[in-house]
């Protein structure tokens, strides 16, 4: 199997180190080869496209130029969205592409046909059966609300990730490792994203709604595939408790942490202790750690 060029995204070296680490260990376990893009830079996230279209395209083009492979994988839903959106725009607008080339001065971009995947797609594509075969500790009895958020699935014309209203890829992976995905309605509702900084009250309202829906559906934990969603749903539970006097006590794990647990990767390597709402009590209750 050829190696994927791996774009970790900024959070992977900060707030989401446990995502990066569990990604690497799960991929190693499955024999999926990742090669980090050397000297990668920020994709621009929301602030770049929100105020300067050309900048948002140029930052992605720069990373493509640095990429050792035409097949790229990232674990961040926001980076994934920026990459796919920029590639889509550049492919459909020649003059725009010429403009971006002027800005980036690429050396290795010509004639390359890039494909960008989210980690969920790569592991799903690897095969549910293949994952199932390697499970050493089925997550029996653990009810999981799979949360996809906005940017993996929307806009569907560009992302073409899964059913935009009721995506299933994460649910299928979670089921493959023996856990029980719950049916719920908030899979693709927005967490408020960057408003955590300028308007935290918006994020508290949106994340409260998501966490309440997960709880009502009977979930023990929420599973996510984006560092931004994770921190909004996990860290902000402290503010929800303080300001709204509501306690959810709902652990929010990266899907790679759950897969890793089932594949027999050690607790320390998966970084459960880095999460704000500690998942270990519920995992212990289910006899999983």
């Amino acid at each position, binding site marked *: 199997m050829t190696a994927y060029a791996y774009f970790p995204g*900024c*959070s992977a*070296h*900060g*707030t*989401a*180190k446990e995502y990066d680490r569990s990604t690497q260990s799960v991929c190693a376990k499955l024999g999926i080869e990742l090669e980090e893009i050397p*000297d*990668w*830079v*920020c994709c*621009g*996230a*929301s*602030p*770049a*496209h*929100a*105020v*300067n*279209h*050309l*900048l948002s395209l*140029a*930052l992605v083009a*720069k990373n493509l130029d640095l990429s050792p492979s035409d097949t790229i994988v990232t674990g961040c839903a926001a980076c994934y969205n920026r990459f796919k959106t920029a590639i889509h725009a550049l492919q459909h607008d020649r003059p725009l592409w010429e403009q971006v080339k*002027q*800005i*980036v*001065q690429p050396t290795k971009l010509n004639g390359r046909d890039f494909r960008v995947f989210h980690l969920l797609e790569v592991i799903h594509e690897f095969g549910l059966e293949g994952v199932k075969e390697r499970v050493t500790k089925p997550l029996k009895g653990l009810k999981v609300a799979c949360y996809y958020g*906005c*940017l993996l699935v*929307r*806009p*569907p014309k560009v992302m073409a990730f899964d059913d*935009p209203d009721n995506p299933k890829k994460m649910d299928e992976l979670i089921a493959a490792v023996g856990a029980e995905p719950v049916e719920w309605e908030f899979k693709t*509702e*927005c967490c*408020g*994203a*960057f*408003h955590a*900084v*300028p*308007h*935290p009250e*918006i994020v508290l*309202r*949106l994340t409260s709604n998501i966490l309440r829906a997960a709880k009502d559906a009977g979930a023990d934990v929420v599973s996510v595939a984006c560092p931004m969603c994770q921190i909004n749903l996990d*860290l902000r539970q*402290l503010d929800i408790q303080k300001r709204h006097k509501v306690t959810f006590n709902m652990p929010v794990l990266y899907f790679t942490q759950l897969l890793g647990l089932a594949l027999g990767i050690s607790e320390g390597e998966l*970084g459960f*202790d*880095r*999460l*704000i709402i500690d998942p270990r009590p519920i995992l212990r209750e289910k006899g999983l750690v």
Partner: protein
Amino acid sequence: MKQATEREQLTRTDELPIVLTEEARKFTEEVIRRSGERVDWCYQCGKCTAGCPVAFAMDIEPSRIMRLVQLGQGERVLKSKAIWLCVGCQTCTTRCPQEIDPAKVMDTLREMALEKEFAADKEVVTFFRSFLDNIQRYGRVFEPTLVLQYNLRSGHLLQDADKGPLMLFKGKLPLRPSRNGAIVRKIFDALGGRRQ
């Protein structure tokens, strides 16, 4: 020439009942040209507003922004808080029956607002500026100085001050920034050094 039928009379478009001033028309045209989106196709079904997760906090809801753009009400649109509250979740873009991309229109409106130095939502503008400065400096986001800079510039000095030690304890804060700032600065320079 054949007499126009009643229906043809009713659907004539050469003299629309809404007459835009030259200035209003220029605004509408500029938004359509720059965003590449046919805002004039919007027929006010309201789906974008109904699905918008932040409409509750907006001064002017997305569907009304679209209508105001059609009517060339540049100043009202560019001075609204709504264009800064749009979080880019793409729900409207996914659902618009006219296949307009309102989230893209919002991007264009923010660009135009900044060019006119309108920044109706100080917090969001300050955050975006701090973020872009941060990646120009380091190449990748370095959370500790990003939060610090935002707090200093916005005047919300103690916001999330309680989170710092916890995040540090949890190993969720990077200790050293990336050194790829030069790569990003080159791109900003090529864009004319516009820091936005």
